[in-house]
């Protein structure tokens, strides 16, 4: 067994950019994203994979990046909240809907919530309220009571565009 601090090389596509990074075997993907890549929009809100604040898209699927070791993501294509738009660029539809419907307060859960809502809408373009609430059950928000988050996602239902 190699030492936990031994370094391994991983190659990833992150927000369209190719990255090769040496990481410890025990390094979680979320820590690689936040610390090695400096993409601090992905947050850590718990240590038991309950809160969903660290949700990113891995090969198009919503994944809690605290459940994945960085070495397991070798070869994957990852989209983080920063990949949806740049500062000054137009907001993506999910971000714009969150703004429009006041679906964020402290903003800490927001990136993870948005990264869960996108695949939810991709898999089911016209979800009913129950499906939205169930689809977001992996993400905890403590500020909004979810009411306006559900409104924001509903507003994109059946719009037929990429969320």
């Amino acid at each position, binding site marked *: 067994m190699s030492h936990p601090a031994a370094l391994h090389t991983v190659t990833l596509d992150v927000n369209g950019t190719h990255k090769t990074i040496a990481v410890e075997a025990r390094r979680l993907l979320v820590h690689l994203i936040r610390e090695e890549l400096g993409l601090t929009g992905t947050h850590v809100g718990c240590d038991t994979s309950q809160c969903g604040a660290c949700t990113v898209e891995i090969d198009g699927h919503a994944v809690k990046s605290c459940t994945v070791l960085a070495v397991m993501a070798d070869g994957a294509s990852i989209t983080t909240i*920063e990949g949806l738009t740049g500062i000054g660029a137009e907001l993506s539809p999910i971000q714009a809907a969150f703004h429009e419907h006041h679906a964020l307060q402290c903003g800490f859960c927001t990136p993870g919530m948005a990264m869960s809502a996108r695949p939810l809408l991709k898999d089911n373009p016209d979800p009913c309220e129950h499906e939205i609430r169930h689809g977001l059950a992996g*993400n905890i928000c403590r500020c909004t009571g979810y009411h306006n988050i559900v409104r924001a996602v509903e507003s994109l239902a059946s719009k037929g565009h990429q969320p």
Partner: protein
Amino acid sequence: MSDMTPIRQIGRPLKRREDLKLLVGKGRYVDDVRLPGMLHMAVLRSPHAHAGIKHVDLTAAKTAAGVRLVLSGKAFDGKIGPIVPNWVIPGSKVPFRPVVATDRVRFVGECVALVVAETLAEAYDAVGLIEVDYDVLPAVTDEEIAIRPDAPQLHDNVPGNITTIYKVRGGDYQKAAQEADQVIALRVVNNRLIPTCMETRAIVAAPEPDGTLTVYIGSQVPHMHRRWIAETVGIPEHQLRVVAPDIGGGFGAKMHLYPEDLLCPYLARELGVPVKWWESRSESHQSTSHGRAHTENIEVAFRNDGTILGLKVATLGNVGAYLSNMASGGPTVNTVNFGTGTYKIDNYEATSRVVVTNTVPVDAYRGYGRPEGAYIAERAIDAVARHLDLDQIEVRRKNFVQPAEFPYRPYGSMGVMYDSGNYQGLLDKALAAFDYDGRRKECETLRGSGIYRGIGVAAYTHMCGMAPSRRLAVSGFDRGGWESARVSIDSSGRATIYSGSMSQGQGHITSLSQIAADVLQIPMEHIDIVQGDTRQVQAGHGTFNSRSMAVGGSSVHVSSKRIVAKARKIAAGMLEVDEKDVSYSAGAFSVPGTDIVPLTFSKVARMAYVGHKLPDDVAPGLDETVFYDPVGMGSPSGVHLAYVEVDPETGIVDILDYVAVDDVGTLINPLLAAGQIHGGVVQGIAQALYEEVSYDPDNGQLLTGSLLDYAVPRAEHVPNIRSLFQETPSPTNPIGVKGIGESGSIAAPPCMVHAVLDALSPFGITHLDMPLTPPRIWAAVQSARTGASR
């Protein structure tokens, strides 16, 4: 020339100005702060609820990879601390609370030792190498058991484990009880909660080249944290800069002084490099303050027509192992002062006892005491209605304080005054929106077919923005009740406002701009708001107690008024007219009834800074600072209704509808106001149905140690919230606002409990304690059925 229609932003549902950075992942929370050479602190926490510390062996940890420093509690003896509360009810016995335990631990999670290392992983690794030899002692976690004569004692100076006894009385309860047709008693538990901000606590302390220290901390109260850290660590306050960047929720938990807040600044100064501490979620459950944790014994005296004659209350507030920041005040003043709720109960007698136990310290959490107080009043009146088999709405209506009675002092209280309100109006609006009569019939009809639906109602009022400052002295606070705002106009007429309030998601950048825009009569885009940096913001108390619009907003309002007053003087001079003849609207000074060309605010601002043509009594500049100390406190109120269906076979509660009608005074931004209600109500529903901190009563182990065990609700566990408002402006401040943040978490717990009890009334169930989890409901139904079949 500008359009002369006055700018009116208050009352508009404007979308938030602060959203954009948060939406694109550019929010900056404390854990995002990374500084060159930064070291990481990790804390060894007590695994025992109560134990003597015989020996701490740091040897192995000291030689581990990357480790720079390992210290146990003895290293801080006489150097920093103790941690002292900021609100001490007169007569309280304050236990000694070291920053790091030295000879005894009193709760699972108390700091015992720490490691500073180059990476967080190395710090955690080394913490695992520290060996502590404990002498385990008997522990007590329950407040009712802790006051028994044979209970384990926590502190030598707190005999019987009671730090504080607080009494309130008005009228003559004994006489009322004698005159009453009936008296009933009930015991209610206000379950212990974990505030659960999605961002856990974190702190970075960084020594600066000029000898000062910068502390990044997710604080609701940056200036108070500056003072507390300065006084406890021994740093001159002016050499300490506290920066609160974006904060991922506070709910009260981030307004207290914690050991880590002191350790990082101390260690950063000792080591000369930045030191960071980040709290893991599981660590948070055993180190960040909990909320509620009361047991209340209630006696209510009433006539058979439902008129309440008197109320007697004896409460026990469990505050954990030490007196945290405000811990002697929450279970006492904040709770029993409000125990009569929205009802006219002239004969009132209440005693609160504040009890220490071997648990995490309990302190402010969204509502702090007012949810507990409202729960007393509401559970009492609901029990009376149920006991007399009268309509729950009509019994409330009969006992409400009447609109003409405001300002109203309940039970002749000197300390409590409800400034304004119209509870009947709230109730009528709620009933209409809810279709109460239709649903009442629906409940009756469905019961025949074995479907158990119920309607819950709760009314509340409280007081926000504790003030004025001299009143806080009487209550035992070591702080004031004012808030500061500085409005600084630049030479182009744009405003930067430095506010002592501190948003943790409430949206102050938007709402304070709306307040300022209406006075300054300039566009929202011309106003910036600065908070959370003690080097930029002159002074402040921060955000808690639903105070930031009533106190912080009024401060912005008053300082903006001073700006306009000065600008008017300058404009009058420039226009060569009398100041009295100058009117101001939509960014232009004009002289009505003349053909004088109006002067724009930006030209006046320019003149203020070049100073070429100023009246003799006017100094250059356009910059005003106000320390606004309110004359009184606003009293928000509300009536909430819930409609539920309970499955007696599974105990599952399905929430079919929730209507909240709240009177928070003037609505500054209806969109943001509704957001506050949604969030607060869901936290209240969470208390009523899901959340409860559990301790093993035998050994004091925390059983809800992570988010796997502590049931914060998800989107699918809660309903849509229909939030409506009634506006009765508060006469206590210039904007007419009252406060909103705590409303939902005050009203929702009794409202939900009453709805479930209403649904279960066919089973003869009259009382259940929160949280109303499926097992608890199922067991009650089973026991009712067994009893009935006997």
